[in-house]
């Protein structure tokens, strides 16, 4: 374990920029670059030439690090990064490799101190001039949320925008964002779509539908030839099968207008032996990736129908559909026929729909922009009653509207200079003969594509209160600040520590904080990748959609619970409870939890669960659909939990070819691999966590044996023969790089918990990366250690950590 506990292991890991700054007795850096070059050439270049350049030279240098022509030019950030890497490797004693001749320790120290001092000085001056963080553009999630809150509309725009690049594991890092003309074109289209939604061009609200639909008349109940539905006398329809193609659509409801609709589903469990029947509600026309497309799972108790109410934004020409969970397949039911079937079913009496729901007309979004300005009819071909906003004093109204709009869009106070360009657009439009509304739309679109809207402007040094308000709201809500934050920023009181603390508490209690959990946890734990592979149906016949979404919810709800109660972040490694619903409890073999609803459940001592490492979601995203790889899982643990990511594999190494025929296990294959010394150096650190996790299969189920398809014993579950066979026994033991042995995952977790400061360091770095758009670098070592020390006195509480980060210079300065 010492290998991980050593701080240097952590520092070699943070990004590419590795700086050492424990300058110690190093001579002060001279301001004279020419003198530096002379000293380097006289004193240090011969040393490098003798011990390092042999491997690190030419077009294909070892480790991708070329030293034969690396100049001591510390002003260049790229060159500086390379020297930092040299310092770290030398200080860690990793280079030169053990079998090669090494310089004297004093020679190494002279070189590393000299380099580190210059790197630190150059870095400090770059910081002073530019700040720590690179200019951030709103990513597509933030863009959609911001337009939603700016205009007051429900709108889906992010899928029309290209995916954002990531750095340090998060897609809100400015350094990884690039702008193209294509992106700008998409922004123009998105702005059009959003303004069309916000501005009402109809004279009246779209007609409200209020209807009750009987399930007798819907697809596929009416059209199917399979006997899987029973029709009861009182109009109820009982669905007996859970086959996807018998997903029951509310096909009579297919609205022409987007809007918010209220659904009331009357349903009950039927022949269910007194137990509830779980069912799924989905939105038609969208794919069930992650949790998207899912309206929800519900538990319908037996007896009189229960009403399940959902209020949801619907796109035009979409509807909802319902499917009972965990019942028989259609082919089984139809052999008996629905009339004679005695198994459980879901009885649906009816679905009532009401909407689109409006408080007023024109809607709030329209009035927010245009206030009470009059509308007049300007009909066009397909909408003769189309209305437009008009103005008797267009320039004065335009200025008033743009001033209010840009203040919120630019998220700060605005001056005449700020709105002048947009006024020019209005003026040019009016002069060219445009009516008021089209001229205004052009100007509003201009605001929405302006860099002041798209980028989070932060100036070097201490952030002003408005920039601070933005940091806070994009950190905890993934959207623009609300009026309270704007007000505090306007009063210049937001920056006071006690005000910041109150605001963090308020924001975490707000529903908007769900965005923090989703976006941070989704990326930190990799849950966004949940659909990257579909588990093999032969090896994992028990995998289903409910299990998948339950996996995601478990991790999110657990994070929320730790955050809410300020529990120690050691809980992420081991914990005596987790958040379970019936499906997940069955997956984990934990009795006493039923139905869809999640509850906080204590874990039995022998459950092997507790903490994120042994959550099914994490175990699924770190495997593919067929095999687990201790290398990938081990590298994941080093990166996400320990904050000591492994270096990338050398270019000339091929991955192991997985084999599920049963003749060999992944460990046997890896053992050969690790016996090669050059591989063993890294794999002694990477593989052990992965070995510990070998007790969990591709979907996070506990296993004593591998599931295989070629050679193995028959497996019977609940009287049914499984499509897979029982393969070789799992060996989850291992030896850490420091020689500590563990027999299984439980012991491994305890070894991880020996070094809580390291766990805290790792998570703090991730949170800072997410909160500010840039991970801490080696120059930030002391600032980071200060946070780790502070939360150490608070038992490493997660909520305390959020507060410490927000109060820190990382967050308060650019």
């Amino acid at each position, binding site marked *: 374990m010492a290998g991980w506990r050593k701080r240097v292991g952590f520092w070699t890991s943070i990004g590419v920029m590795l700086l050492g700054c424990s300058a110690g007795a190093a001579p002060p850096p001279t301001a004279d670059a020419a003198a530096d070059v002379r000293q380097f050439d006289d004193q240090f270049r011969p040393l490098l030439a003798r011990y390092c350049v042999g491997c690190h030279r030419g077009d294909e240098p070892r480790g991708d690090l070329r030293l034969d022509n690396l100049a001591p030019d510390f002003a260049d950030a790229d060159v500086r990064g390379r020297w930092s890497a040299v310092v770290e490797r030398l200080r860690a004693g990793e280079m030169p490799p053990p079998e090669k001749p090494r310089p004297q320790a004093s020679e190494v120290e002279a070189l590393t101190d000299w380099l580190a001092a210059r790197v630190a000085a150059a870095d400090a001056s770059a910081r002073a001039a530019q700040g720590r963080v690179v200019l951030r553009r709103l990513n597509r999630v933030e863009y959609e949320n911001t337009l939603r809150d700016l205009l007051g509309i429900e709108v889906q725009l992010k899928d029309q925008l290209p995916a954002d690049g990531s750095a340090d594991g998060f897609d809100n890092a400015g350094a990884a964002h*690039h702008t193209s003309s294509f992106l700008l074109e998409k922004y123009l289209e998105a702005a059009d779509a959003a303004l069309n939604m916000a501005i009402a061009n109809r004279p009246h609200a779209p007609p409200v539908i209020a209807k009750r639909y009987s399930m007798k008349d819907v697809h596929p109940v009416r059209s199917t030839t399979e006997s899987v539905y029973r029709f009861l006398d009182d109009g109820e329809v009982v669905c007996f099968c859970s086959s996807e193609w018998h997903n029951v659509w509310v096909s009579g409801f297919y609205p022409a207008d987007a809007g918010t609709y209220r659904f009331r589903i009357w349903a009950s469990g039927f022949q269910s032996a007194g137990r509830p029947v779980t069912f799924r509600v989905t939105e038609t026309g969208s794919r069930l990736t992650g949790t998207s497309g899912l309206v929800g799972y519900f538990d319908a108790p037996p007896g009189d129908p229960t009403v399940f109410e959902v209020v949801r934004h619907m796109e035009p020409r979409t509807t909802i559909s319902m499917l009972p969970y965990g019942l028989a397949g259609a082919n089984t039911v139809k052999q008996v026929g629905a009339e004679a079937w005695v198994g459980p079913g879901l009885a649906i009496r009816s679905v009532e729909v009401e909407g689109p729901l409006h408080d007023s007309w024109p809607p709030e979004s329209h009035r927010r922009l245009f206030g009470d300005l009059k509308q007049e009819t300007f009909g066009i071909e397909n909408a003769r009653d189309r209305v437009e906003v008009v103005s008797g004093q267009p320039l004065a109204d335009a200025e008033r509207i743009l001033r209010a709009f840009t203040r919120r869009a630019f998220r700060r106070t605005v001056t005449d200079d700020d709105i002048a360009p947009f006024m020019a*657009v209005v003026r040019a439009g009016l002069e060219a003969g445009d009516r008021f509304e089209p001229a205004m739309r052009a100007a509003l679109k201009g605001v929405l594509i302006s860099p002041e809207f798209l980028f989070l402007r932060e100036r070097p040094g201490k952030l002003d209160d408005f920039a601070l308000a933005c940091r806070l709201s994009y950190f905890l809500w993934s959207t623009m600040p609300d009026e309270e934050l704007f007000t505090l920023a306007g009063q210049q009181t937001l920056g006071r520590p006690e005000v910041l603390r109150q605001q963090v508490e308020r924001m975490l209690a707000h529903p908007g904080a769900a965005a923090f959990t989703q976006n941070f946890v989704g990326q930190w734990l990799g849950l966004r990748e949940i659909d990257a592979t579909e588990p093999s149906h032969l090896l994992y016949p028990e995998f289903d959609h409910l299990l998948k979404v339950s996996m995601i919810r478990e991790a999110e709800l657990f994070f929320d619970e730790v955050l809410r109660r300020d529990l120690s972040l050691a809980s992420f490694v081991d914990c005596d409870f987790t958040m379970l619903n019936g499906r997940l409890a069955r997956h984990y073999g934990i009795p006493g939890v039923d139905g869809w609803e999640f509850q906080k459940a204590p874990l039995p001592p022998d459950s092997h669960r507790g903490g994120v490492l042994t959550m099914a979601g994490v175990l699924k995203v770190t495997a593919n659909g067929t095999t687990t790889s201790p290398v990938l899982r081990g590298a994941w643990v080093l990166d996400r939990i320990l904050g000591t990511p492994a270096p990338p594999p050398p270019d000339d190494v091929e991955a192991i070819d997985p084999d*599920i025929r049963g003749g060999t296990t992944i460990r046997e294959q890896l053992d050969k691999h690790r016996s090669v010394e050059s591989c063993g150096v890294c794999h002694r650190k990477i593989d052990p966590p992965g070995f510990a996790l070998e007790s969990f299969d591709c979907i996070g189920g506990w296993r004593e044996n591998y599931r295989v398809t070629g050679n193995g014993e028959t497996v019977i579950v609940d009287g049914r023969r499984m499509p897979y066979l029982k393969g070789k026994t799992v060996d989850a033991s291992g030896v850490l790089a420091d020689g500590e042995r563990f027999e299984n995952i439980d012991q491994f977790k305890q070894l991880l918990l020996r070094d809580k400061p390291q766990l805290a360091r790792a998570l703090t770095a991730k949170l800072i990366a997410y909160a500010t758009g840039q991970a801490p670098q080696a120059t930030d070592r002391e600032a980071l250690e200060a946070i780790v020390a502070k939360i150490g006195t608070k038992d490493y509480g997660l909520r305390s950590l959020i507060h410490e980060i927000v109060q820190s210079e990382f967050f308060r300065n650019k």
Partner: protein
Amino acid sequence: MTNPFPARVPRRTFLRAAGVALALPLLDALAPRRARAASAGGVPRRMVCINTPLGVYPPHFFPGTAGRDYELSPYLEVLKDFRDDFTVISGLSHPDVGPSHDSNQSFLTAAPHPERRAGFKNSISLDQFAAEHIFGQTRFATLPLTCEGLSLSWTRSGAPVPADSWPSNVFARLFLDGRPDEVRAQARRLADGKSILDMIRGQAERLEPSLGAADREKLDEYFTSVRELEQRLAQADAWSKKPRPRVDRTPPVNVQNSADLIGKTRLWFDLIHLALQTDSTRLITLQLLGTSSVPPIPGVSQGHHDLSHHGQDPAKIGQLRILELEKMKSLRDFLAQLSATREDGESLLDRTMVFFSSNLGDASKHSAKNMPVLLAGGGFKHGQHLAFDENDHPPLCNLFVSMLQRMGIESDTFGSSTGTLRGLEAHPGRGSS
């Protein structure tokens, strides 16, 4: 529904292709000529780059023998009617692109180490590079398409060029003029766009001075994008005054089953054929589908991604073979469409380079080496298996340089190239009139 996967080249493919040609009496004579006068050598040259992101099972794809007398592999057997119209190449890959699905991002760019994620910056893709040289000759400079997910096309700054995922939308952009109110709205958007961008550009000086170098680089990228979009809008404006080519085809109906990778592929191939034939664009990229869901193919009961991780299981490899054979058949029918279409007395295939490959050489272990490469058409001396040593081979970009030069673009380098690809020569009698 009729069998969507006919075993032989379906007759209707030819009929359809011929039907379109008949419906376009003016095409050959009129539409492309204006563009052609401006293009190098007078002959319009085209490039279609296709990536199938989950690899192609290597033992079934690569021939066992090299040279002109090579023996067709099981997958290439599907293409046997076009044996003289393609070259199969083994051993190639991008240097410095490591084993991972992330190699997708470098497929047409060769940018190093996408798999490391940290610090990765993409570079310009082959099609966008070519577009810089032949900008303005066609209504659309490039047409990046995808069955789902990532685009193959990237800008110089390393930003993705969004790819269209819906054939019906692309068809509308290429061929439909729209209702009068839509045309007016579009004209309005163009005019607004131009005035807005002009106004934004004027702000550059006001915003930039206070910034540090790294921030300025980000804003420079933004303002460069503004200028590029202005140019594109100006082009779009000019083209909007010229009538769109008429095609006697009903708009395609998008494939609703998201797992139907073959159906989606065939729909795109049909549309690509139409786009090339009408000279609407000369540069197309197409990302095929690598779905986790089970595709509707008889004999296939597992998702494509799952099958690609076959773990040497013969049953899985068997299903993978069924699936990949269907993919090869769709490619064969696409080549047949191009081959059957004439332009200036030549086949469209001879003027269109079809580059078909995968960012993964062996998907079972995520290897990015020894990519399966097939180059069809474009007027090369085909009919051979160019075999390179996967541990000592020229960069794949050498092939890209050969392709660029065949496009008439005088460029000696692209990405990690060291020259043109040895062993690949232009056919003196084809595509050069």
